[in-house]
C-alpha cells in the first residue's frame, strides 16, 4: 500500500479556474517527495486536498489507505501539515507552541513536553526555547513549524513551500531541519518552486505544470531524462543547423555533450551574444517538459 495515492484529481474553483487536471501519482512509505512547479501550477491546491482542507471536484486521494473525502478523520489522525506562508504564534515561545500543538493532538502532558523538547533540540532551537517567537528570525520561525509537525509523530507530513520568502541562509537552515526530520518521519511531501531545494532534499520529484503531472520519478531518472550533460545559455536568438534548441524570453538554450559546447560558444560570440555553460540539473528537465524556466513564474 502506498503512503499517498492520488488518482485523477481535478479541481475547478467557483470562479471557473481549473487548478488541477487529472493529477495522478503515488508515494511509497518512507520517501521524501518534492512536488515541483511554478506559482499557480496547482501544488497548493493538491496539498490542501490531501490534507483534508479542500474538496476535489473529481478524483480521489488516499493517505495510508484512507480516502481524504469520505474518511477525513482517519486521515487527520495520521497527518501533519505546514501551510504555505504559515507562521507560529508570535506571542508564544517555541516550546509553548509545540507543546500546545501536541496537547491539541491528544498527547498527555508529560509525553507532549518530552516530544516538544526533543523536536526543538533536533532542530537546534534549544537556545531560543524561552524566547517569544515574535523575536525570532524568519528562518527560526520556520524551524519552529518544522519542529511542531515533526514532534507530532504523524506518519505523513505535508509541507507547503516550507522556505518561501526566506533568504538563502535561512533556507539552508530549514533544509538542515528537514533532513533531520526525514530521519524521523515516515513519509514527507513538500511543495516547492526552488529546484535546488528539490535536488537537495527529495528522493523523488513530481513536476506539475498548469494542473498536470509532467514527470514523476526519482532524481536519477529525472537527470537521465535530460539526456545531455551540459546546458549552453545564449543570451539572444541563435539558430545552429543540427542542434535542437529551446527558445525562452531573450535566450536560446542548447543541450549538448562536452565536445559541442565549444562550437556553440564560438558561434554565439561570433554573433555578439553573451553565453554561459552549466551542467544540466533538474531545472533542465523542467525546461524541456514545460518550455519555461521555473523562476519566471516566481
Amino acid at each position, binding site marked *: 500500500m502506498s503512503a499517498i495515492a492520488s488518482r485523477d484529481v481535478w479541481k475547478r474553483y467557483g470562479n471557473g479556474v481549473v487548478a488541477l487536471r487529472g493529477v495522478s501519482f503515488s508515494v511509497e512509505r518512507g520517501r521524501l517527495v518534492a512536488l515541483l512547479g511554478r506559482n499557480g501550477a496547482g501544488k497548493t491546491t493538491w496539498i490542501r486536498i490531501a490534507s483534508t482542507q*479542500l474538496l476535489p471536484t473529481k478524483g480521489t486521494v488516499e493517505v495510508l489507505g484512507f480516502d481524504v473525502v469520505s474518511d477525513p478523520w482517519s486521515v487527520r489522525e495520521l497527518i501533519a*501539515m505546514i501551510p504555505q506562508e504559515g507562521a507560529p504564534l508570535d506571542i508564544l515561545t517555541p516550546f509553548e507552541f509545540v507543546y500546545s500543538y501536541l496537547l*491539541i493532538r491528544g498527547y498527555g502532558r508529560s509525553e507532549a513536553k518530552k516530544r516538544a523538547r526533543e523536536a526543538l533540540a533536533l532542530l537546534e532551537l534549544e537556545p531560543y526555547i524561552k524566547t517569544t517567537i515574535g523575536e525570532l528570525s524568519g528562518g527560526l520561525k520556520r524551524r519552529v513549524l518544522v519542529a*511542531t509537525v515533526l514532534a507530532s509523530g504523524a506518519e505523513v507530513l505535508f509541507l507547503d513551500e516550507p522556505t518561501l520568502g526566506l533568504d538563502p541562509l535561512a533556507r539552508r537552515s530549514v533544509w538542515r531541519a528537514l533532513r533531520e526530520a526525514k530521519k524521523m518521519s515516515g513519509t514527507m511531501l513538500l511543495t516547492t518552486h526552488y529546484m535546488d531545494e528539490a535536488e537537495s532534499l527529495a528522493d523523488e520529484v513530481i513536476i506539475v505544470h498548469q494542473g498536470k503531472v509532467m514527470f514523476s520519478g526519482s532524481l536519477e531518472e529525472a537527470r537521465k531524462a535530460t539526456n545531455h550533460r551540459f546546458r549552453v545559455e545564449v543570451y539572444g536568438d541563435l539558430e545552429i543547423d543540427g542542434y535542437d534548441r529551446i527558445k525562452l524570453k531573450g535566450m536560446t538554450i542548447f543541450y549538448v555533450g562536452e565536445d559541442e559546447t565549444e562550437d556553440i560558444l564560438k558561434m554565439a560570440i561570433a554573433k555578439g551574444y553573451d553565453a554561459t555553460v552549466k551542467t544540466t540539473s533538474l531545472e533542465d528537465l523542467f525546461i524541456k517538459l514545460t518550455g519555461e524556466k521555473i523562476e519566471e513564474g516566481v
Partner: protein
Amino acid sequence: MRRLRKGFSRQLIAILTISWIDGVLSLRRAPLWVVSYLLMPLALLFFFSIYGNPIMMKISIIGGIIMIAMSNGISILGDAAFYRIYVKYQDLLIATPLRPISYILGLSLSMLVFASPGLMLFLVLAWLLSMMTPSFTLILAICLIMVWASSSFMGFIVSTLFNRLRHVWPVASILSLVLAILPPVYYPATILPQGYQWIGALAPTGAAAMILHQVSGLIELETSAIMTSIASLIGYMTLFVLLLIFRARWREG
C-alpha cells in the same frame, strides 16, 4: 509508540489548551488589551457617576458588565481571522484530530479569560453598591454566559465572511459599539415609547440589560418587553449555535 487521548477528553483538553494560549498567555504578555477594552465602560461609568443619579450609576455598572462580555466575545472575530488568514494557524490545526467546534469553543473561552479582569472590576463595583443579591447574581451569571456565547459565536461566524484581514478589524469595533450603545444597555428601556419597549430586546445585549435592570429593581418593564428579552436571549443563542454547526466545517468546497 504514540499514546494519544481519544474522544471527548481529547477535545476537552484541546479546548482548554486553545484558551490557555489564546487567553491566559496572551493576557499575561499583552495586558494593555485589558486597559483598551476597559476604557469605554469606565469612561461611561465616570460620566454617569458625575452627571447621573444613583440609578443611572447602577445602570452604567450593569452596562459595563454587558459591554465587556460582549466586546470581548466579538473580538474573537479578529483572532479567528488572524489565525485563518495571516498565520494560517487554523490550517495547521485542520490537519489534526481537533474538531472545528472545539476550536471555536477554545477561542470563545479565551475571550472570556480576556474579559475576566474587567468583569471582576465591575462585579466588585456592583457589590460595593449592594447590587449583588442572590437572585441578581444568578440572573447576571446566566445573562453573562448568554451574551458572551452569542457574541463570540456571532464574531466567529462573521470572521468566516472575510478573506482580508484589514477589513476585519473595523467590523469588530463597529459591532461592539452598535451592540453596546444603540440598545438599552446604558439607558433604561422605559424611555422607549410605551408599548414599544420590546424593541430594545431585539439585540442580545439590550435583552440582557433589560432583564438585569428589571431584576435589580431599577425599572419596571412591560410584560411584553420582559418576555421578548427572554425569548431574544434564548433565540440568539440557539440561532448562533445552529449557524455554527452549519458553518463550522474545516473543509472548503
